């Protein structure tokens, strides 16, 4: 505001300014989309060529996905968030139905039923469940006040998280399950849950985990964690991917081996090299420079989202932005951490990089929603009214 006055512009001008898109956020998304196509091409082409498959096939598919994702971002940006607030229950219930349906008619891949397949197109409802939970949680928590959230509301929030988490656990998809839990907890924190509530929640989830562990329900998780803590003993089994991934990234060195180069990626020492382990290809081929810039790009997006949260017109918008920021940060940390060996293996994608349509479009749509919140931000940051 003050800057507009200094620049000699009137209120009309400042109102116009508030409608200007967030070029940094949009630019970061575009950069990731382009890099995604490039890295998928680079990581798949040499091997596909030797196998006699179309070397550009995966990349072309991803280019279409990126285009659709950008459209989804645009649509999200146009949705006025008050309308979104109203539509939240519809989105949420739709997501639950999709999650339930996939358990019945979904396709089993790698011992998990996470996918619909319709005429060759694959659709992963759990990717869309995350933005739906964010919007629904935001709608629930928006009316509450700092340190004055009633226990009833907290339990409602837990139930809103719990139902999709149970459905996701049934697939099973551990990574997405954790993502929902973490983003929900962060939203509760941001919404102003009291320290007492938060510590009670933390304590009880610890107890539940301990109980599940003792009942042997977490044997799959245990294996993963054991492989992560003792990689050498599991070098040919569960720890094969992370070990090979670290070798690949390490061998990239400071400036990388160059696009289309790198024996680890090209010789398929890294399975899932275009999906969950796409960061490995970045590390091997583009080196520390490329990897650090990529991480920085995510940091920039998260920064823009937090800024959006701070500038949001209302608590609903703030909570949506925080939720999306938490989802993104969790995905990046867990996925990149896995390729670097500081996190156990969980099958969650790297946002806007991993090959796959559901993840890209759902994330881009969620990013679009926060962009819309930015576009409709409060003009006087310090004195924003709350709705309800």
């Amino acid at each position: 505001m003050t800057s507009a006055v200094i620049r000699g512009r009137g209120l009309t001008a400042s109102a116009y300014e508030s409608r200007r898109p967030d070029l940094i956020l949009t630019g970061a998304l575009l950069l990731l989309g382009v890099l995604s196509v490039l890295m998928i091409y680079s990581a798949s082409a040499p091997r596909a060529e030797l196998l006699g498959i179309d070397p550009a096939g995966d990349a072309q598919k991803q280019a279409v996905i990126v285009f659709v994702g950008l459209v989804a971002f645009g649509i999200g940006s146009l949705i006025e968030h008050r309308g979104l607030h109203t539509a939240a229950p519809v989105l949420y219930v739709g997501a639950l139905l999709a999650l339930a349906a996939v358990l019945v008619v979904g396709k089993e891949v790698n011992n998990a039923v996470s996918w619909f397949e319709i005429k060759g197109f694959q659709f992963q409802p759990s990717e869309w469940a995350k933005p739906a939970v964010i919007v629904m949680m935001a709608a629930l928590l928006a009316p509450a006040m700092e340190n004055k959230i009633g226990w009833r509301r907290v339990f409602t929030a837990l139930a809103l998280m719990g139902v999709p988490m149970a459905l996701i656990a049934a697939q099973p998809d551990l990574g997405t399950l954790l993502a929902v839990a973490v983003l929900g907890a962060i939203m509760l924190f941001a919404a102003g849950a009291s320290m007492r509530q938060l510590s009670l929640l933390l304590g009880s989830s610890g107890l539940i985990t301990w109980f599940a562990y003792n009942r042997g329900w977490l044997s799959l998780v245990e294996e993963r964690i054991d492989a992560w803590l003792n990689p050498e003993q599991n070098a040919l089994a569960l720890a094969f991917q992370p070990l090979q991934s670290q070798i690949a990234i390490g061998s990239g060195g400071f400036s990388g081996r160059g696009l289309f180069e790198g024996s680890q990626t090209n010789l398929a020492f890294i399975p899932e090299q275009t999906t969950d382990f796409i960061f490995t290809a970045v590390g091997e081929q583009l080196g520390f420079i490329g990897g650090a810039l990529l991480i920085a790009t995510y940091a920039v997006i998260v920064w823009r989202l937090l800024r959006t949260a701070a500038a949001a017109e209302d608590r609903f918008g703030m909570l949506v932005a925080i939720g999306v920021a938490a989802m993104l940060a969790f995905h990046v940390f867990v996925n990149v951490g896995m390729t670097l060996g500081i996190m156990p293996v969980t099958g969650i994608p790297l946002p806007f990089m991993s090959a796959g349509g559901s993840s890209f479009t759902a994330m881009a749509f969620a990013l679009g929603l926060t962009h819309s919140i930015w576009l409709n931000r409060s003009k006087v940051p310090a004195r924003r009214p709350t709705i309800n």
Partner: protein
Amino acid sequence: MINPWRMATLGITFLALFTMLGVRLWFLQVASVEENVLKASNNQIQVIYQQPARGEILDINGTVLAGSRPSQTLQLDRSAVTVEQEEELVQLLSVLLTVEQSVIRNTINSAPSGTVVTLARDISDEVAFEVQEYQEDYPGVEVNLVPVRIYPYETLAAHILGYTGKATEADIERYGDVVKTDEVFGRAGVERQYDNVLRGTQGAEVFTVSGDRTVWQFAEEVNTQPGWNVVLTTDIEVSRALKDSLIAAVERSREQGENPTGKASGLVFDATDGSIVAMESIPDYDPNAFVGSLSAEEFEVIQENNALLNLAVRGTFAPGSTFKVVPYVVAVEEDVWPEGLNGPESGKVLEPRIEFPSLGEGSQQVFTDWSPNHGWTNLHGALEKSADVYFWEVALGVWEDNSLDEAIIQNWARELGYGAPTGIDLPGEAAGIMPDREWRERLHEQNPVAFPNGEWYGGDLMNTVIGQGDLAATPLQMAVSYAALVNGGTVWRPRVVDHFLDTDGSVVDRREPAAVRHVDLDPETSAMLRVDLAGVVRRGTASGAFAGSPYVNQIGGKTGTSQIGAVADDIDTAWFVGVAPITSPKYIVVIVVEEGGGGSAVAAPAVREVLEYLLNPETAPRRLPIAEAAAP
């Protein structure tokens, strides 16, 4: 809206997480880049080693003594199966082979992952059929024909051939990591001595492989070079004749009421070029037993009998009267004669019991000949009748003559090959003992407790000249020294290997006859000795053993009956050294039967059998020209 500290907490948390990623990235890519680059390049290389075929061992006529036979072998390619599949295979194979699961698991784990491991050799056709028919149940399991060492003549020539075994810790230390668990190494005899030649060069195929270990590209090949075939100087038919004679000698000794240890050894030595024509020892062993796996009990049985010991090369015995040829030659060459005599022809009546006061205090003074009735004796008769007293008087002459080196007899013996390894191309040769004052003093200095007496007496020399006392020699040393004495002085370095063939059958290398030294021996002395050795066979101590032999005129020799210690004569060790044809000696045949009794009664008939075999035109060794021998 949002409480600022909550916002700050979130911002700092997210920043911390991204910073952690950046730091870890720096650690991997900048701090430990070299290590990771190395790992990445090792990752994509798989080397498949190929064992060369082990060379064969042939005798001089081209008969295969150690070869290979194809064995139906069950192998597991560990690179083709996962850990879980291996565990399933352990259970299936345990049932199939009726072997404990733990045994199979240990076998599999003994080989590095990604290599081929042998599960069982010589499997039945039923097992092979089962695996091939239900291949999908046995992933990575293959039935292969693998060459396995075979010794068709079993115990015959076993001590020359030796045996093979799997790699030991020592082999891996010597050859490094390239040693594969299935690789076979020579453990004894020629197999060990010429292991490098027989083994050939290991080949390797280097592949670039992908993450699932499928071969991606062929990178490099190091050609396998099969081992050379080793052609021995020996003749397996002579070996058979020698072995039969040894067994008969032990039998004969038992029939005569002796109690032999069952240890006997002999060899046929070519005096013209130093080759070993045959070399046998009993007890013996079958080298086939070491192929595959020998149980600890089986090995213990073989070890207990000392059957692995090649007595001809590694066994030392007091040579007894066979040693008398040395003082014989010293008497002639150094002109030392018994009292009152002045040459080989002059003689006197020998006293059977003799006292030598000049031998000095502490020494044995009284010596009694084995025979009370030698009568008038000169040098020729002394050898023919093996008269101890004659050679004692020669030794006394040395002892009393201050102008002569006190150890002149021992020095001659050493020149002829006693007291040191002959240098034969077989492992573990014994040196024997050629005692003298210096030797006795050295022993005492080194270990005063075990050898309290460091003095050397005249009596010790008396014992030495008749092949007793501390003197010890291997049968091979006897053969080498006799050959030198009858061939005019050439001390051969004995050899069992004649030449090497490559797989095409062409000669790639040759072990030429080599002399260790030429002893300065008057040809007339050598000729005179040959005549007297013939006299031993015709008139002397061996005349009974050779009576009626059609080849008696072509044979010379010397008996020996050595007493171990000074106890009773039922522990006599029997010797005979035969030489033929005596006019131009070619074969030296040495036979020793430990505690077998008298040389003339036990050893001489055995040597007669071998010599008759060698001299008979029907059975004489046919040594083919090399070109012919080389043909397959």
